[in-house]
């Protein structure tokens, strides 16, 4: 029999805020040593009260707008009770009854063209700490406690592992480009709800939930494994499927059922009396909308029209730095395709030498557009442009300054070039002879000599033409 897979996702994303959700401690990635980013509030000490970080609400709303959600104008926090050493208050502040965003829609690529995935809701919550197990005892690190998260919950709309991966990649690109989250180092974690049913039937099969996976690779493997387990169970009666929570073991590549005790809890949710309901009025919502980054879909369409390749688009939209720079440089009058090459090839090349990546790029659109314009307008050649870019990235030297100091700021007219060409010819008579006797390689040597003499200034095409004429 043929089977159809039905998958729904719950994706936790750590928000890119300066501080935690209910206290002033630094946010995601702000700390290196265990417990160096904690205060009495996020350690669960008595006397401290939660005060909501406004930025968390703005980022959650922005995420909702990007995923075409309805934004709740009235939103509340609830407490979820359970005991675990990494949860210092023994409750987590989350949203149950009035989540901040509902009813969204995101379009993804699938084997059959584009498909819409419905977003059930997005809610805000605080993260838990980390346990470090060492032999007979365990240590607790509260750095991650109260780091803000949003949980994006989809309807069971995925029909294949590929669709899930496309969705996750898109979510990652959107959130990175929108400044919502870095989506790395465990900042994006997934729970996968999965079931299979005979193709053509409507009724959902028995569902299992695979909890807390943070690498895309694991998620994909776990889904493939789980689909096969369900189909085998149905086809060969190998086991009886029960609704349960499972974990994925990266070493064995298999999923296994969690102990009942870990999953049968009644979380005794109730509204948090310490946090007043949040009202999002028109003015605030308009402010958030005005600062919302361009929707990824619009951006991708624009890039395609500009002739940027799919590969380049993928890299670009996942980097807020790159997209912002690109947009500003294009706005300054440079060609989009040309600019992409300068950013993704030249700038990244320089950054890699210094062991850095695209997101470390800190140059102004003004400087980059100046370099690109000088090159396209043939004021300097491409190599000089690259050198200027390297000086800009590595030492912060402005292009104008660099070109002046390197002696290539001359405005060249053809008489300047002609003089140099004639000088090179008279200085290198032996090479000229060789060229005339048929050694074509000698021409390159002469051209190189001219360019050295010009210190990188001048249009190579013009120099070449003049050299040919004068030989």
């Amino acid at each position, binding site marked *: 029999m043929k089977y159809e897979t039905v998958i729904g996702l719950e994706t936790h994303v750590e928000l890119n805020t300066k501080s935690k959700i209910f206290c002033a401690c630094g946010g995601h990635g702000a700390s290196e040593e265990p417990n160096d980013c904690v205060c*009495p509030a996020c350690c*669960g*000490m*008595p006397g401290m009260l939660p005060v909501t970080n406004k930025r968390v609400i703005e980022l959650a709303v922005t995420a909702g707008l990007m995923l075409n959600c309805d934004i709740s104008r009235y939103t509340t926090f609830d407490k979820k009770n359970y005991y675990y050493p990494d949860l210092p208050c023994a409750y987590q502040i989350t949203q149950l009854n009035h989540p901040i965003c509902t009813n969204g829609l995101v379009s993804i690529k699938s084997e059959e063209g584009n498909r819409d995935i419905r977003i059930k809701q997005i809610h805000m919550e605080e993260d838990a700490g980390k346990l470090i197990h060492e032999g007979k005892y365990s240590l607790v690190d509260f750095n991650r406690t109260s780091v803000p998260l949003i949980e994006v919950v989809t309807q069971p709309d995925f029909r294949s592992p590929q669709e899930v991966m496309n969705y996750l990649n898109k979510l990652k690109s959107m959130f990175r480009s929108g400044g919502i989250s870095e989506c790395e180092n465990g900042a994006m974690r997934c729970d996968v709800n999965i079931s299979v049913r005979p193709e053509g039937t409507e009724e959902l099969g028995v569902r299992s939930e695979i909890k807390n996976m943070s690498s895309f690779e694991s998620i994909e493997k776990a889904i493939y494994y789980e689909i096969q387990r369900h189909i085998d169970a149905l086809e060969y009666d190998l086991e009886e499927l029960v609704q349960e929570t499972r974990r994925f073991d990266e070493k064995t590549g298999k999923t296994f059922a969690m102990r009942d005790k870990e999953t049968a809890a009644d979380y*005794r949710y109730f509204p948090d*009396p*310490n946090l007043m309901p949040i009202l999002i009025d028109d003015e605030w919502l308009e402010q958030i909308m005005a600062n919302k980054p361009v929707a990824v879909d619009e951006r991708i369409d624009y890039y395609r029209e500009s002739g940027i390749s799919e590969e380049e688009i993928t890299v670009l939209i996942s980097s807020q730095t790159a997209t912002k720079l690109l947009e500003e440089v294009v706005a300054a009058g440079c060609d989009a395709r040309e600019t992409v090459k300068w950013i993704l090839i030249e700038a990244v090349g320089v950054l890699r030498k210094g062991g850095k990546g695209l997101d470390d790029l800190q140059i102004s659109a003004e400087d980059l557009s100046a370099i690109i314009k000088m090159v396209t307008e043939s004021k300097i050649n491409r190599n000089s442009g690259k050198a200027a870019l390297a000086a800009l990235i590595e030492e912060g030297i402005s292009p104008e300054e660099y070109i002046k100091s390197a002696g290539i700021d001359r405005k060249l007219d053809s008489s300047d070039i002609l003089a140099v060409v004639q000088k090179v010819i008279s200085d290198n008579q032996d090479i000229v002879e060789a060229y005339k006797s048929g050694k074509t390689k000698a021409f390159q040597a002469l051209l190189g000599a001219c360019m050295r003499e010009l210190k990188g200034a001048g249009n190579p095409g013009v120099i070449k033409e003049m050299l040919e004429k004068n030989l």
Partner: protein
Amino acid sequence: MKKIAIDDTIMIKGELAQAGSHILEGYRSLFDAEVVTRIKNAGYEISGKTATGEFGLDLVGEFSYGAEQKGKLHGDAALQVAGGETDAALAVDMNGSARRAAALSGITFIKPTYGTVSRYGIISCAASGEQVGVYARGAEEAAQVLEAISGHDDKDGTSLPEKEYKYRTEAAAGGKIAVIRDPEDKADEDTKMKMEDFKESLKASGVTVDEIELDFLSPAATAWQILMCAETCNNISRYDGVKFGHRADNFRNIDELYINTRTEGFNFLTKAVILYGSDVLSKNRYKDCYEKSLKIRRIVADSMAKIFEEYDAVLTPVCSKTEYEAYDIDEAFGKVFEESEFTAIPNLIGIPAIVSGGVQMMGDKYCESKLFSLAAAGERGLK
């Protein structure tokens, strides 16, 4: 007036803050509660800390860890204020224990409008109804201290925006109050006498006194009991032996660490509150208990608001007796529940209440001045 004592549910930097519980034994606060900061800034001197019953859950403070009371019961802070050892004291009013203690000692206690005094730095239990109040020997002193501690605080999300509050205590010209007819005749003869004395004293200063009936005293008490237990259960679940305070010596795994620590650390009354609170929040009880209590809270608030359109205050007893005798902790949960029928409404709906002359007056939100004026008038008449 200079010296102010601080109850052990309110934190002073570097000082022990144990809330009368074994589970917080040895715990010292890392910071001052906002009310303590304000008391210091206003130039008062802190005379010391006063003992409280474990998490303020008992009648007046009789079940404080290691100091259970025998014989006639009293509240430590109330006794010190009454005896002149300190001029005033701050305490958290969460389930009426401070108001009862003030009545027993014949002093004044003001429980202010919810949100007017910061809760930052108190050992929180029932977040939606607890509020720091003031013990003093009279309405005027209580008003002075309350002015010093009230006003907006950014560190408390439930704090109201008003920056400061000014209170008047001069006797009201006239005024009109309501006395609730006691439907179940819970108050004893001595308490009834106190009510009569206070009524007469008010009448003598020109206050009109009407008698009215209220049919929601008992449901209001039950609703607050449910909310109070649920919130307390949740708030004190952080005392688990992992981070600070008492930790059991013997455990083989994390579950035993929790269970043994909390079994040893809490007294019987607190355990009853935890069980009751867990139960009302459980999936199959939530709708009938917790959600219904929230509805009752709304109905009671609306009904009281209507009464306050006509009356400046509602006069009621605050305890069923004028004296409490020591009793067994097994009976504590039921006893406190029963007595809370007199005290629950101000906690449930956040209105102010003042205890004076052994009785209680409840007022509309932000109408502390009316209560102070009436209490001052009543106190003058009693002298």
